[in-house]
């Protein structure tokens, strides 16, 4: 019987009411009395020296309040990078300055040059057209291979080269890895591109900076996944505003997918400008603007090799990647191709020797940072495409080759530093074969062929590291922040509860799922519990929502805080019931003395806490409010197996997704309906990457895919219904809920399944010369591969 409340129930979402009736409050829906509006004048060239910015005419135009340029930020800090990577030789990465408005040079199309603040948005835009910018265009560095050559034009003149770092992992194992390759019975090699993507949450970014001169307090409303992080970075490193004078509010946010984690120039600008002009300053990004200012994702060029022995066991993996950083280091950028990518290179397999080399490169393009999966899609794609290629070369079944090499004993210490606590890859593969009806594939293939289409089946597995992260560990790896989270459980006198959490919900349904946990623990109705998130003045310091961490880290903090509540409540109950604390049991919202019929209700205890007339004041304080900060002891390791069936029309190259099945192991889950929704969304984005999306810069750094006219977003007609299953559950061994997180799995596990399916389809039609097609696997790429 499915549960109807508490942990494991598919409770309907409360947040739906406001979203369905148009009464949500997204940042652009907020307006501050007397606010001014800012429009950013952005570079239309990819690389250039700014000779002059003449704002004199623009400044006189109707409604213009003030125009800012890079010169106004001379005494202000630049946007900081939150993670310092150390290279193979123990040297810190090269870290260029990142001013709020361009100073001296523009380094990508979209780099902000001037900010026009006016009484209305249209007046600001009109005035921008009157600004005369004299930029001496320099040659643009776009191709990563060219960027790292000796003598290449430098994106940052004060750095020694365009190489941010040359990272090797695990460096001490490189020799053994090379030796394993030299002695291998078979080596499979694959070169691939994991193409740059634009995250495109449907809500463009917005920022409103507000200043209260009377008490010297600044407020920033911003479309962020992590308000406290923004407050810390902006207050401490950019604007020098003390934290108790800076409030950051992330209200309803329309999707994030990683792109809204980072601290951006526009929000620093709005906060700064409000203080300068003593008026609120509001910025709303247009979609075209977001294409040249939101951090972009992926953008790896990789060569990966697999060494196998004569029995098809994986002996070693060696992989080399050029990872694009773009023109500036975004907040978490250096960590994505290194610690969030290299550490996943074992995948689900027992490969004993692994070496990962990553060269991070500056180019004259928009900054690149985490995007749904952040490093794990890149790791999974190269590994699973490689294994598929190896299976074909060896003439073995792709599932059998994977099963043969599965890790089956846990905990498992990988050769790339991480230790998987638990998992069962055999179970998820068994489940996939069942829910995907893989046995029926050949019959479906024949039907497709009878209709003139090739049909292919693509399989892959994935593992990912979620629930970031143990602070001490990531600190050693270069993180400049801790990665714990926090929750305050505030019980009210009449028994209702507010839970203030450091996590942020921008689609994940926390307002529904989190109360389910507390309700289960206390045995009271979910409706008595409300979640407060997004406002730094109301919530304890948490690192926000990304990396599928909210339930694993913030949820654990919530559990710990609730345990403290239960502990104190039992003390109060034992006083009210005149029994010893050890004999008090809490069940279904009732405190009772074990072995008797003496009991009191949750509401009796909560009232006593706030009206402590009959109360053990000598032992405990009044009130019932507890906070917990939770620092995880490890990452969590969701894993799974996916199957995709495609049809290919060889005349046009068009690929359609006919069937998609996902068997995931997320450990325990709180709300199955929400979990499935997360997987659906990830699959949709994964199909987008596999078949449709591409961020294209020409050789001069012009962004050709600058809007939805040219960037193909997946639509309802591009995808079928999906079959998703998360009934295989190996609970996480190191957090109180046994949860692993589920937000990114779909985006990680989908692209390899799709591409593997296309290759399978082509091979079934005799086009065995096609061993790989880079994403997006567009009709023209398929057609060219067949006919090339």
């Amino acid at each position, binding site marked *: 019987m499915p549960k109807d409340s508490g942990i494991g129930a598919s409770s309907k*979402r409360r947040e739906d009411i*406001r979203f369905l009736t148009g009464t949500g409050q997204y940042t652009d829906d907020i307006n501050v009395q007397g606010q001014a509006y800012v429009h950013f004048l952005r570079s239309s060239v990819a690389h250039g020296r700014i000779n002059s910015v003449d704002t004199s005419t623009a400044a006189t135009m109707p409604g213009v309040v003030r125009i800012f340029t890079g010169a106004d930020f001379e005494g202000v800090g630049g946007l900081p990078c939150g993670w310092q990577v150390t290279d193979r030789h123990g040297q810190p990465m090269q870290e260029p300055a990142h001013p709020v408005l361009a100073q001296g040079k523009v380094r990508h199309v979209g780099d902000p040059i001037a900010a026009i603040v006016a009484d209305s948005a249209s007046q600001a835009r009109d005035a921008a057209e009157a600004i005369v910018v004299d930029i001496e265009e320099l040659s643009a560095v776009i191709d990563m291979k060219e960027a790292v050559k000796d003598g290449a034009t430098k994106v940052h003149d004060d750095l020694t080269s365009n190489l941010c770092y040359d990272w090797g992992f695990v460096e001490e194992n490189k020799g053994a890895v090379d030796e394993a390759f030299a002695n291998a019975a078979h080596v499979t090699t694959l070169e691939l591109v994991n193409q740059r993507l634009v995250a495109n949450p449907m809500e463009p970014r917005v920022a409103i900076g507000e200043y209260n001169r009377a008490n010297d307090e600044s407020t920033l409303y911003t479309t962020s996944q992590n308000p406290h992080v923004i407050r810390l970075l902006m207050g401490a490193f950019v604007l020098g505003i003390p934290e108790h004078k800076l409030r950051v509010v992330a209200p309803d946010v*329309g999707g994030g997918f990683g792109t809204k984690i980072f601290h951006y120039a526009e929000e620093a600008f709005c906060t700064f400008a409000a203080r300068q002009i003593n008026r609120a300053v509001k910025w709303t990004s247009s979609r075209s603007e977001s294409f040249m200012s939101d951090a972009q994702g992926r953008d790896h060029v990789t060569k990966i090799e697999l060494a196998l022995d004569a029995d098809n066991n994986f002996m070693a993996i060696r992989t080399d990647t050029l990872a694009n950083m773009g023109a500036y280091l975004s907040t978490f950028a250096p960590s994505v191709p290194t610690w969030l990518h290299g550490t996943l290179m074992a995948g689900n397999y027992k490969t004993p020797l692994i070496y990962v080399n990553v060269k991070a490169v500056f180019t004259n393009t928009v900054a690149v940072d985490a995007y749904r999966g952040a490093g794990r899609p890149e790791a999974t794609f190269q590994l699973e495409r490689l294994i598929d290629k190896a299976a074909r070369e060896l003439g073995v079944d792709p599932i059998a080759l994977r099963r043969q090499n599965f890790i089956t004993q846990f905990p498992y210490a990988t050769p790339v530093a991480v230790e998987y606590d638990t998992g069962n890859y055999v179970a998820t593969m068994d489940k996939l074969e069942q829910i995907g009806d893989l046995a029926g594939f050949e019959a479906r293939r024949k039907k497709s062929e009878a209709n003139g289409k090739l049909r292919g089946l693509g399989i892959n597995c994935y593992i990912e590291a979620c629930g970031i992260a143990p602070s001490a560990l990531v600190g050693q790896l270069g993180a400049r922040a801790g990665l714990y989270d926090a929750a305050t459980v505030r019980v009210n006198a009449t028994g209702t509860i507010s839970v203030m959490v450091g996590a942020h919900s921008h689609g994940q349904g926390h307002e529904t799922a989190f109360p389910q946990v507390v309700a289960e623990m206390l045995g009271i109705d979910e409706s008595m519990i409300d979640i407060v998130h997004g406002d730094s003045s109301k919530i304890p310091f948490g690192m926000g929502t990304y990396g599928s961490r909210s339930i694993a880290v913030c949820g654990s903090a919530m559990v710990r805080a609730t345990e403290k509540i239960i502990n104190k409540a039992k003390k109060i109950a034992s006083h009210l019931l005149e029994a010893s604390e050890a004999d008090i049991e809490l069940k279904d919202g009732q405190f009772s003395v074990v072995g008797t019929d003496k009991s009191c209700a949750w509401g009796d205890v909560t009232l006593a806490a706030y009206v402590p007339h009959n109360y053990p004041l000598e032992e405990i304080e009044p009130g019932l409010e507890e906070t917990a900060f939770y620092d995880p002891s490890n990452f969590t390791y969701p894993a799974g197996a996916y199957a995709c069936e495609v049809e290919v029309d060889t005349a046009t190259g068009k690929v359609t997704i006919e069937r998609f099945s996902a068997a995931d192991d997320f450990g325990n889950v709180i709300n199955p309906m929400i979990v499935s929704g997360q997987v659906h969304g990830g699959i*949709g*984005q994964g199909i987008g990457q596999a078949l449709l999306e591409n961020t294209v810069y020409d050789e001069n750094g012009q962004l050709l895919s600058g809007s939805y006219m040219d960037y193909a977003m997946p639509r309802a007609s591009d995808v079928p219904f999906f079959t998703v299953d998360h009934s295989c559950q190996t609970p996480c061994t190191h957090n109180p809920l046994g949860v692993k997180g589920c937000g990114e799995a779909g985006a990680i596990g989908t692209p390899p399944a799709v591409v593997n399916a296309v290759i399978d389809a082509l091979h079934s039609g005799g086009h065995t010369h096609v061993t790989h097609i880079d994403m997006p696997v567009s009709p023209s790429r398929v057609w060219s591969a067949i006919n090339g």
Partner: protein
Amino acid sequence: MTKITMTVNGKSASGDVEGRTLLVDFLRNDLHLTGTHVGCDTSQCGACTVHVNGKAVKSCTMFAADADGADVQTIEGQANEDGSLNVIQQAFQDHHGLQCGFCTPGMVMAAAELLKNNPKPTEADIRHHLEGNICRCTGYHNIVKSIMAASGQDVSAIAAE
């Protein structure tokens, strides 16, 4: 500036607009009906979908002045008189047809038009009708299911979870 008057969700609404003021900006900024959203600037995403004289229209691609005298319906007017969700809205909640909610008003308005003209649409009908509405969160699975359910058709075969 031009004075315009229209009926919005059954009530008369007036304002002074520039020739270039978009209908979506008039709704959001002048009438403070912020349920209609702007998600793009090339008329693709559909987050701005409203009904003008009974037809679904992308309000980002229409001037407010062109809606002078029109009957406009927005997401704020969809719920029942007593505030309860209408059939389509309730179906979206029942079947988890939204996550961040930003595309949702457009999806509901697009669905309303579809079901008015095609009361029992097929899956293919729904997916085709939604070509002008982009969602980044849901992968469309539960949106299509919600619309199917709102039409009264059986969705039990479509996996829930």
